[in-house]
């Protein structure tokens, strides 16, 4: 039971003293069944975090193999076939099994806390999303252990992915696996849209929401509008491969470009789905450690919305070499240039936030600044691709590989690490070791540049993408060697992080409600939060309740900071734990597996899933109460 000091002066306008810490750190409980049946967004967010970090490691190992193979000319560490599986799985794992779920970890954990809600709108659907992700991730990842991993690239262009040119099960696993994973994201999208629209605490208008929640909000709309398109693209491929339809069959008049258009109409919004959450995290971290509000909040929101819209209008910039014709090339070139504006404006606003502030370099803030620095480089190379004639040299070369690693690693991953250091105390009640965190940052920053900066050069010096080896004497050796060493260092950096993460879980310095002196609602409750989050739903009067709040905010904070009361004592009703979402997810995945295993399994899985869904839908979410 913690005693609290009642904060009357906003935390950041006083000398910074870490808030009082409780004697013991609450934990979530270790029963496995408890984790399988949980519907608590905080536990689900924790599950996403651990699972996603695991897949991040897998994707990282795949990257190390790629770099080891490419470290010198004409190497044969792995065969061409193996290499093709590795680079396919590296992209697929990092995008669908690492970055998106890492973002989901934050959506889950942070959004309800930031808007003053007890949980998401549909807690069981939330659990369902996680289990689909875990099972789908295993489904698509396990084949590599048997040498049957997907091997047609993460983008799977037809007709290479049709049965004629990929007769094995590799692409089957890819198509079915992605369909499964799409369901996870879609379900979560409906959940968070409803949550953010409908469960905001009294006084939390849309323009008072923290920017992370705003970015997440925009991302959910992009997900629910973009994922159906790849669902259709994959469905066509699935039908072609399993049931002999003609969608991508060249001999029947099928157009390979249909796949490309459908894929990239999804694929381009997807990359903004990957980076906007990181932007949101940075938008929380930078103001906190600058001790001043985010510079230009409305513009940050509007630019995010604009990116969401324009993101659906630029997709064919991935297709400048396919011969769409001068009009299409020009239109998409111009729209791509346009989208650079709202994206660039955010960079300036972050810099404007630090300006005139009192910037403190912590692990979290260093990673946030790292994103601003590295995403700028990725953004500049992105603008370079936006000119179609110039892109005819750049596309499908290592110049593109450099660009997207700067925006995805230098952008998404750096932002996610910032978020992990920032929210670790809130999630687990302990603070990660700062020394190790800074070592992690500096090694990552240096190694990241060592790995990916040379790729700008090897690309413009003629090195194509997706090649398992290259000849000597082409002028690429030094750059590749540097990249490989950088990648090895990145791996070491990741090990430092993993060590810090797990060590801090056990023995990190205990944190109170607000170790960083931040200003938003999630920092008004204990760390980790009690199951009900807020003892009393807060009344919100400003964007930074703890910094700029009025008396109502301060009163709410005072009530909510105190820990130690159970839900029953407070008269709060919590949802039941239930295994039905996990079971439904399992049967759904089994049903899809039937496409590869045998059609009987489709029916058996479907029947079981319908029963599980029926049981789910007809059972109450929580105990009756009025």
């Amino acid at each position: 039971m913690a005693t609290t000091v009642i904060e009357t002066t906003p935390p950041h306008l006083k000398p910074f003293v870490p808030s009082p810490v409780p004697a013991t750190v609450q934990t979530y409980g270790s029963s496995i069944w408890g984790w399988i049946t949980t519907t608590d967004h905080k536990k689900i967010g924790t599950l996403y975090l651990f699972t996603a970090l695991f897949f991040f490691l897998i994707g990282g190992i795949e990257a190390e193999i790629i770099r080891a193979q490419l470290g010198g000319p004409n190497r044969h560490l792995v065969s061409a076939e193996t290499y093709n599986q590795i680079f396919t799985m590296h992209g697929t794992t990092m995008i669908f099994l690492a970055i998106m779920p890492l973002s989901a970890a934050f959506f889950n954990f942070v959004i309800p806390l930031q808007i003053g809600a007890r949980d998401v709108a549909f807690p069981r659907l939330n659990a369902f999303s996680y289990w689909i992700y875990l099972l789908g991730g295993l489904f698509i990842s396990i084949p590599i252990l048997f040498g049957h991993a997907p091997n047609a690239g993460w983008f799977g262009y037809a007709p290479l992915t049709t049965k004629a040119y990929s007769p094995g099960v590799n692409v089957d696993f890819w198509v079915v696996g992605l369909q499964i994973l799409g369901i996870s994201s879609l379900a979560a999208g409906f959940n968070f849209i409803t949550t953010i629209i409908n469960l905001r605490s009294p006084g939390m208008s849309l323009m008072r929401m923290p920017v992370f929640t705003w970015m997440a909000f925009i991302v959910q709309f992009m997900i629910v509008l973009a994922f159906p398109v790849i669902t259709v693209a994959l469905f066509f491929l699935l039908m072609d491969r399993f049931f002999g339809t003609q969608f991508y069959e060249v001999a029947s008049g099928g157009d390979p470009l249909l796949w490309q258009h459908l894929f990239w109409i999804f694929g381009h919004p997807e990359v903004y789905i990957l980076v906007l959450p990181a932007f949101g995290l940075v938008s929380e971290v930078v103001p906190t450690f600058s001790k001043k509000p985010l510079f230009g909040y409305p513009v940050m929101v509007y630019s995010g919305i604009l990116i969401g819209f324009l993101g659906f209008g630029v997709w064919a910039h991935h297709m400048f070499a396919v011969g769409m014709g001068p009009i299409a090339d020009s239109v998409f070139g111009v729209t791509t240039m346009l989208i650079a504006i709202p994206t660039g404006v955010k960079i300036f606003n972050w810099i404007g936030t630090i300006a005139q502030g009192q910037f403190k370099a912590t692990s979290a803030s260093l990673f946030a600044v790292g994103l601003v620095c590295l995403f700028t480089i990725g953004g500049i190379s992105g603008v370079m691709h936006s000119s179609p004639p110039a892109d005819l040299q750049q596309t499908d070369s290592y110049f593109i590989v450099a660009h997207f690693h700067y925006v995805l690693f230098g952008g998404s991953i750096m932002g996610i690490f910032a978020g992990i250091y920032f929210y670790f105390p809130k999630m687990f009640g302990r603070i990660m070791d700062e020394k190790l965190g800074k070592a992690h940052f500096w090694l990552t920053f240096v190694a990241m540049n060592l790995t990916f900066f040379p790729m700008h050069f090897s690309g413009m010096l003629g090195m194509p993408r997706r090649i398992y080896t290259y000849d000597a004497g082409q002028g690429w050796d030094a750059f590749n060697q540097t990249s490989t060493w950088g990648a090895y260092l990145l791996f070491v950096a990741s090990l430092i992080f993993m060590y810090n993460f797990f060590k801090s879980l056990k023995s990190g310095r205990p944190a109170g409600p607000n170790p960083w002196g931040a200003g938003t609602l999630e920092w008004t409750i204990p760390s980790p939060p009690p199951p009900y989050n807020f003892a009393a739903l807060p009344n919100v009067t400003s964007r930074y309740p703890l910094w700029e709040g009025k008396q109502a905010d301060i009163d709410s904070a005072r009530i909510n900071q105190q820990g130690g009361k159970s839900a029953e004592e407070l008269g709060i009703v919590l949802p039941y734990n239930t295994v039905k979402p996990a079971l439904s997810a399992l049967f759904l995945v089994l049903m899809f597996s039937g496409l590869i295993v045998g059609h009987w399994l489709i029916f058996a899985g479907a029947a079981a899933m319908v029963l599980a869904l029926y049981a789910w839908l007809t059972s109450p979410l929580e105990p009756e109460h009025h």
Partner: protein
Amino acid sequence: MSTATVSHHYSSTGLDNRKIAIWAFIGSECMLFVSLISTYLIYKDRSVVGPYPHTPWTDPSTGHVYHAILNIPVTSASTFILLMSSLAMVLALSAVENKGKPQRNLGERILGNSKLWLFMTALLGLGFLGCQAYEFTSFVNEGLTIKTNLFGSTFFTLTGFHGAHVTAGVIWILSMLFIDIKRGLGPSDALNVDIMALYWHFVDVVWVAIFTLVYLIR
């Protein structure tokens, strides 16, 4: 549906969560059907072999003459049936919302009979599905399968997706009917019926688009 009673929880908009969720779902489904319809339109007139939707075709290798596959009169009838099912759904929702109000004459008793209108909605929906089944089997007999050509693949996939949505809707309506029979539906269930109705009307609107773009426009 969940047997939990009407939510008393605080909400920012005054709407129930499920109402917002169904609209988000419908928005997503729009993109799904837009992609399917766009593919159909892109591949229109690009099939290398017939049969074709609106024009006859002679197979050069067998000499067999295939007439235009689509049967506009029959499909117009099934479209009408589906539209009428939406009307029945409106009446069903109204009956549920107004359950308990006095019914003064036969007309009001008929209109207020939620079981009747739920049954009619499901029946008309099944009627539509029956027409689709008849249509598809006759196409297959006439030589158009999902594998035959681009038209077959796009047509059957598009209408198949739609039919699957109708089927899911019919199951949903029958479940609701079952609950109505078992314990009766009243104003407290209006939200659940409203959500179901929204879904059903959406499926109907999608069919109007498909019917226009696939059947009517050449």
